């Protein structure tokens, strides 16, 4: 992997609003697939990953407000308490925005190391709310944060590939 590629220095198409919305929509759909049993424990949080990607790469387009809104829809779909996902995604988006310059200085492997604690924090916020309201924590839930962090590299590669211009701009 060339460093320049990861550092976002290659020419990428400006992310259109439609593309951002579409990527978030696909992530939500992936989260809503009928996972259950062990697959549910290991399921990466696709929405968190895509939100974090946009918060670190386009912090002025996708911020805390959008993360919160997506979280509210996730709360309705999962029948969790209103604000549970919203709080987790708010914390995540804040972490992404604060670290966005720093994250882009590293290559993808090192980026995953930055992303993992952010995801852990967001998972922790969700679990803490649950613990406050219902009084117990399912520890296997945190496996999802590990899987999500591992998925950071392929997901970034995929989104970068989709943002690259189709045609060579130098050809006449």
């Amino acid at each position, binding site marked *: 992997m060339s460093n320049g590629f990861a550092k976002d220095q290659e020419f990428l198409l400006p992310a259109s609003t439609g593309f951002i919305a579409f990527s978030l929509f696909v992530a939500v759909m992936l989260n809503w697939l009928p996972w259950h049993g062990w697959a549910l424990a290991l399921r990466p949080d696709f929405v968190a990953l895509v939100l974090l990607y946009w918060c670190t790469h386009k912090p002025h387009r996708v911020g*805390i407000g959008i*993360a919160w809104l997506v979280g509210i829809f996730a709360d309705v*779909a999962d029948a969790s*308490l*209103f604000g549970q996902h919203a709080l987790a995604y*708010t914390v995540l988006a804040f972490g992404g*925005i604060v670290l966005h310059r720093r994250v882009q200085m590293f290559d993808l492997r090192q980026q995953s190391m930055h992303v993992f604690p952010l995801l852990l924090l967001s998972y922790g916020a969700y679990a803490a709310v649950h613990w406050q309201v219902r009084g117990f924590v399912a520890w296997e*839930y945190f496996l999802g944060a590990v899987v999500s962090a591992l998925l950071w590299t392929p997901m970034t590669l995929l989104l970068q590939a989709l943002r690259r211009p189709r045609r060579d701009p130098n050809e006449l």
Partner: protein
Amino acid sequence: MDDTRTLRFFNRGPSPVARLVFFSVLSVLLLFVDSRYQYLESTRKVLAVMIYPFQRLTALPGEAIGSVAVYFETQERLLAENAQLRQQHDADAAQLSQLQAIQAENAQLRVLMDLKQRVDYPMQMAEIVYVERDIFKRKLFVDKGSQANVLPGQVVVDDFGVVGQITRTYPWLSEVTLVTDKDHSVPIQNQRSGLRAVVFGSGDINEMALRYMPVSADIVEGDVLVTSGIDGTYPPDLPVAKVTRVERDPAYPFARITCAPLAGVDRHRALMIVSGLPVLPERPATVETTTEPEGAKKRLKRRKP
């Protein structure tokens, strides 16, 4: 030159910290209101209707795989299954004719003894749309909602036993909390000895616990626990769980009893919603209105899963 603050050429609105604080406080406020009060139920319903088509869309791949699997089912397997079902049907039919005779006899005896007649509970078929997607909760969604007159509090059963209870209804969906949900309680009766107790969910999909039973309680492994029906929510005599392990340690005041739920949510897609809640006698009119009913209401609310 002393001023090292970053110059803000472009006004980008409030700083991330301000936004973080604002949205966190908003979330915590919503959490508080949602966990204590019922004000947000209508908002939830509106949003649920908005995302309903997408939720059905996500269930499509699974359904497609299921229909492809049915297409490739071999003939021998179908024949074997058919033969087995036929056999089952014959056995059931024999038992059913006995049951009818016994029911008639029972009704007659009840008339003779001047007891209240038992009622049959109308049932409604529903299909599982999807199973729990949140690891903390034991919930599932079925495809009948308030448009099909499903009400919160109704009981969901499959052909083996009680699956759970409807806890929230949307226009075309309803949310079922499983009996294995953490601290979900079902009043039961031991079918063998008639002992009444309450069985609690453990949060684990195939385990339930019978708490607060004295060491000397008449419960052995293999006992079937059925609903007792004295709570006014669960109709009587629906199988709930089977006792799998009994530990009697005299050092503790209570015996440790583990049960396995009889109904399986991962086995099939069709469930039954038992619609007819028993009609309770009218509450006698109370004179004192301020303190007592409020307390009773609160207690009821907290027991709800």
